[in-house]
């Protein structure tokens, strides 16, 4: 009985600490999932359209530890769209001089 109570208190404390951590780091946590698709789309776009690497080469360049869930390369529109951790990012190649940029900054 006593042990049960202790475990319940411990779990409560853990939740409290975790909650506090989330509140304190909310700015960082909120934008974190966006990193995966933004990094992949941006670095793939530049690798493919600026550097001139082939698709396999550029996937090897842009991939991260967290896998992405969708990838689309539109060669006509010179656009790359990537989804990862529930967020989607599109990067377009604008010109030879200025390279790639986010479509919706």
């Amino acid at each position, binding site marked *: 009985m006593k042990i049960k109570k202790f475990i319940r208190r411990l779990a409560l404390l853990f939740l409290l600490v975790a909650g506090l951590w989330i509140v304190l*780091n909310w700015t*960082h946590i909120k934008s974190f999932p966006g990193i995966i698709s933004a990094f992949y789309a941006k670095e793939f776009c530049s*690798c493919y359209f600026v*550097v001139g690497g082939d698709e396999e080469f550029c996937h090897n360049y842009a991939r991260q530890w967290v896998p992405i869930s969708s990838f689309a390369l539109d060669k006509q529109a010179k656009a790359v769209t990537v989804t990862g951790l529930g967020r989607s990012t599109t990067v377009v190649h604008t010109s030879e001089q*200025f390279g790639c*940029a986010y479509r919706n900054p």
Partner: protein
Amino acid sequence: MREMLPLLLLLVVGLWSCSKPSPVRKDGETAWQQSFGKKQRDYWPTTDWRVADPVKAGFDQQKLKAFRDYTFQRTGDEKNRAGIRTDGVVVIHNGYLVFEEYARGYDKNRRHLVWSDTKSVLNAAIGVAVRQGKMNIADSAGRYVPQLNTDEKKAITVNDLLQMSSGLFWDEGYESSPLKSLVIAMLYTRGRNDMGRFAAEQPVIFKPGERFYYSSGTSNILSLALKNALGEKDYEQYFWKEIFEPLGMRNVTMERDGSGIFVASSYMYVTPRDFAKFGYLYLNDGQWEKKRILPEGWVKYTVTMAPAYYSTPMNDHLRKDNPGAHWWLNLGIPETGQAPPWPKAPRDTFAASGHWGQFLFVIPSLDLVVVRTGDDRDGSFDINTFLGLLVESLADRGGKP
């Protein structure tokens, strides 16, 4: 109580001495020497580099091969991204191209992302603006960037930003601390619409000039400052008109953020041959074809150690960074016995240095410019070994560090 007194005193003295490390020296040592830029050149590589036979130019063939074999060895495949992954090397000696090789699909016409080497190119653009009287490094940066024109931040000068000693908070972690890394937030998420403003809005944590710590944020604040100093229209073509075109760098891409400033911290793409021309500009003290691109004294300023470095508590990581003004030096701190970052290279070596193995070295005492591009993901590539092998291959010509 009486026996506690010495202990208390010790504590007070200890705390007092911890609060502010006394600087080793107040001025920065410089890598610059009178001989910089004095050498007569028989041609300028504006059209292209002329090629010279390395053996006739004074290199030892066997030793140069050892340099080549180290640099281009491969231990893994593309999937595991392990080991040394050199993409290109160009070596210029006495103004002639003596070594050039590419790998992993790159060639002399293919641009390579040079990441933070871009910062050193920004240094040149600020230098030109100073020559034209459009910026002044002693100015409060608040004169050009409204976010810094506050009571708290107006003491920060353009110079403090160039020497990464602004005192503005920054967290420069890539893969190591993705959650709190401000570089990642600036480049990919919260900051990407307006990178200069994002960095300028960070809180003040030290007095300007008190501490050095690496900050990609400062480069984009400077990029924004340059835009505001020049006006949007002139700024857009400034790097090309003032630097790339006069030097004949025809293969350059520079990417911009959502607000239209160049991402001066990270996003320049250039061929190694063209990038070597940029190094050659600094080797010649900022002159090109009898014209001054960078004002007199600019290269000296650039290769002078940031004074804040001497008052910053030292650690292993920091020992590898000898900050000039958005260029990196090889001086160490003789007063404390701290070795230079690349002991096998001459002390007057200075460099642009970027993520995943991008380097541009200028070694005036050996009349060398060296570009190395790569995609190192695991730290296998040792830059000191690389430089050591190259310097050794020139040893017969007096190339001793």
